[in-house]
């Protein structure tokens, strides 16, 4: 049974929340989850193209990140660490299950039908356009190599800086630059070829 030595601060830093979590405060985990579930999910979804798989990757990523804290502490922010683990979990999951038809180059997406709230904010036509654009972007992303895709997704959807991407991927900032350069070139070529954006 964990011993709760001190109450968790109401407004806490990630480090404080992690300490509280280690001490057994459930609220600390809830707060960490609330803070980072969106970037983690965005990264996982972009890499997997499937909602349920993305949630699985988020789940696995959070669990691994929290149970292997000793591997990261002091080297990067928790967000960088978490997104690294989530993206790796997503890639592992993708390899295990194969990328779903949702990202298949030909398969139509029906997520709007299951998530009508996405369309509520937009005009219906505009929503469909956005859906088309999202499909196109996902297809373009799928044309990248795995390592380029992970780099770009951490940069774009994880909203990490170049240095943070480098830390997350355990590589140099020059390598990140290079990967992003080629990823951008390829994405641009793919998008221009199909639908100039």
């Amino acid at each position, binding site marked *: 049974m964990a011993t709760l030595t001190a109450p968790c601060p109401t407004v806490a830093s990630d480090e404080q929340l992690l300490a509280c*979590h*280690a001490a057994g405060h459930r609220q600390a985990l809830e707060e960490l989850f609330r803070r980072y579930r969106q970037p983690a999910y965005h990264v996982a979804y972009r890499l997997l193209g499937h909602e349920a798989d993305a949630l699985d990757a988020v789940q696995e990523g959070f669990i691994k990140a929290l*149970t292997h804290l000793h591997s990261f502490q002091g080297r990067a922010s928790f967000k960088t660490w978490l997104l690294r683990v989530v993206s790796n979990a997503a890639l592992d999951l993708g390899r295990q299950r194969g990328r779903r038809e949702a990202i298949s180059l030909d398969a139509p997406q029906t997520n709007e039908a299951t998530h009508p709230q996405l369309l509520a904010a937009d005009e219906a036509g505009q929503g469909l356009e956005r859906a088309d654009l999202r499909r196109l972007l996902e297809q373009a992303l799928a044309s990248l190599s795995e390592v380029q895709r992970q780099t770009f997704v951490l940069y*774009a959807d994880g909203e990490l*800086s170049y240095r943070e991407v480098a830390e997350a991927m355990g590589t140099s900032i*020059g390598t990140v630059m290079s990967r*992003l350069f080629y990823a951008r070139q390829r994405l641009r070529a793919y998008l221009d070829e199909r639908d100039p954006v």
Partner: protein
Amino acid sequence: MSRNEDNPDREQRPAFGEDRFPADSEDDLSEWLREHPEAHGDMADLQRMRELYQSVSVPQPEEAAWTATLTRIASGSRLRVKPALRRKRLGAILSLTAAAALVAVLLARSWWTGQSSTQPQPQLAEEVFPVVEADDVTIISMDARDVAALVVGEPPISGDLEFVQAADIRVIKCQRCPKCGNVPRLAQGAVPMVVTSVARVDEPEE
């Protein structure tokens, strides 16, 4: 500008793009970028591409799915987060088991000692390896590395092998190994003779 052309700006360009570039070096980089408009274009295009992806939302899970995910994370991390505690428990269990086993062994030994003092010690039967003929053996497979060690037919030496003393041996001839060229050295004394090759002697040039 004194900046060399060996792509020194790989680390600086992203910092510049993210407005984190040191102000005192900004002029240099701005000048370099003016000379290399393609780099500026690349940076701007990458930023546009990032914004494009960020502008397109991904399907959002229902709140219930988030809640279920959080619950699984909580239970999953609880199961795995306290390895130290589990290690302590495991260690305690192992210690208790080892202690119990030790007690059991001691008890069994004392009981066995009491038994053997009253009962005659059974003679250990000497197990003799059966000797078979070569025809009795069928080699199904063997490692290629063992082929050289395989002896087929009569064993090379009959009888027991014994160490000999140096006095038991009379050296008739000592010559260079025809294959490796090494020369043996004889070390004689109270210990069994040791033959070692100590040097390679080349053939004298004619």
